[in-house]
């Protein structure tokens, strides 16, 4: 467990609670993969001191997930770095929720896991190429799945392409669902998919972790 300085707008310092990072070649074993159509190519790469998960999807949809158990509180933040290298080609990029084009280069799932899985609520943090930050919508599949654009902008390459995120799942849940979550966070997942648009998508993920905000005296 390490103490790091605040990495985004919220004040205070952040103490790492649990890391889902990709520190070495063995890291993907900690994650489980689900293949839905074709297999997104996930592999651990390194740029300087940064180890990250590289994902390349070509007309494919498969995601990685890890189980956890964390109550969503005002102090709990999910932190991660990501970089999109290419976005799936969409006919209607202005539509966030579109069953025919439900592909995103990079999305992080926070699943509030109910004992009955069908009653689980899901937040999806998305990096979209054109939609504005804070754009949100129900998923085309269920109103229990909320899509939220947390990063907007073009693909980037190299070290300048990386973006840091720090989200409070409780605040996002309350904003999108209009109520408090009944269940703890049970699964963290990520995916790059391009199967609906039959195109290609590529993104990188790094340093995914839960952090607790400590307010400085």
């Amino acid at each position: 467990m390490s103490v790091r300085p605040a990495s985004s707008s919220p004040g205070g310092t952040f103490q790492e609670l649990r890391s889902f990072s990709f520190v070495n070649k063995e890291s993907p074993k900690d994650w489980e993969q689900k293949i839905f159509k074709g297999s997104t190519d996930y592999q651990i790469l390194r740029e300087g001191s940064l180890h990250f998960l590289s994902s390349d999807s070509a007309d494919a949809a498969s995601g990685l997930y890890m189980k956890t158990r964390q109550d969503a509180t005002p102090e709990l933040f999910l932190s991660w770095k990501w970089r999109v290298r290419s976005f799936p080609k969409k006919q209607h990029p202005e539509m966030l929720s579109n069953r025919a084009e439900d592909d995103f280069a990079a999305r992080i799932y926070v699943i509030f896991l109910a004992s009955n899985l069908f009653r689980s609520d899901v937040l999806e943090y998305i990096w979209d190429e054109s939609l504005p930050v804070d754009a949100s919508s129900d998923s085309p599949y269920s109103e229990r799945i909320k899509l939220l654009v947390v990063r907007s902008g073009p693909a980037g390459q190299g070290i300048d392409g990386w973006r840091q995120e720090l989200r409070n799942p409780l605040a996002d849940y309350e904003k999108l669902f209009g109520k408090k979550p009944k269940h703890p966070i049970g699964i963290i997942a990520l995916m790059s998919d391009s199967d609906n648009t039959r195109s290609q998508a590529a993104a990188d993920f790094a340093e995914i972790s839960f952090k607790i905000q400590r307010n400085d005296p």
Partner: protein
Amino acid sequence: MAWRMKWFMRHPIQAKYLLLVLLAMLAPMVLMGFCFYTLVFDLMARQLVFPEAIFANLVPVIDRINNLLSLTLPVLALIILWCALVISHRFAGPIERLEKDLDQILSGDSRHRVHLRKNDDLSGVADRVNALARRLHN
């Protein structure tokens, strides 16, 4: 041989047997069906993990199965009810017939005999009652 045409009698014992048979048939079926239904879909959902996959692939299957069940369950319920009626009638019918025939003998008709179908479970009792009635009459 007396032929009982009515499937549902006024005798309360048939209602008792009917309820017992219905419970004996329905309770395990409903319990097993519910466990199987929820367990299978829960396991499948846990295998899929990703919510889009669950709602895109599994929920339509569940909807189709629900539609099928909404059609087949009423038919199945009718079949079970009919089976329960037949079984309860087979239990209660001979008892009612035995009571009626004994009432007639007790009312003074000493020539009257108990008539049950050959395969009725109480036919042995009926034979003995008839033997007793004959002995008393003679």
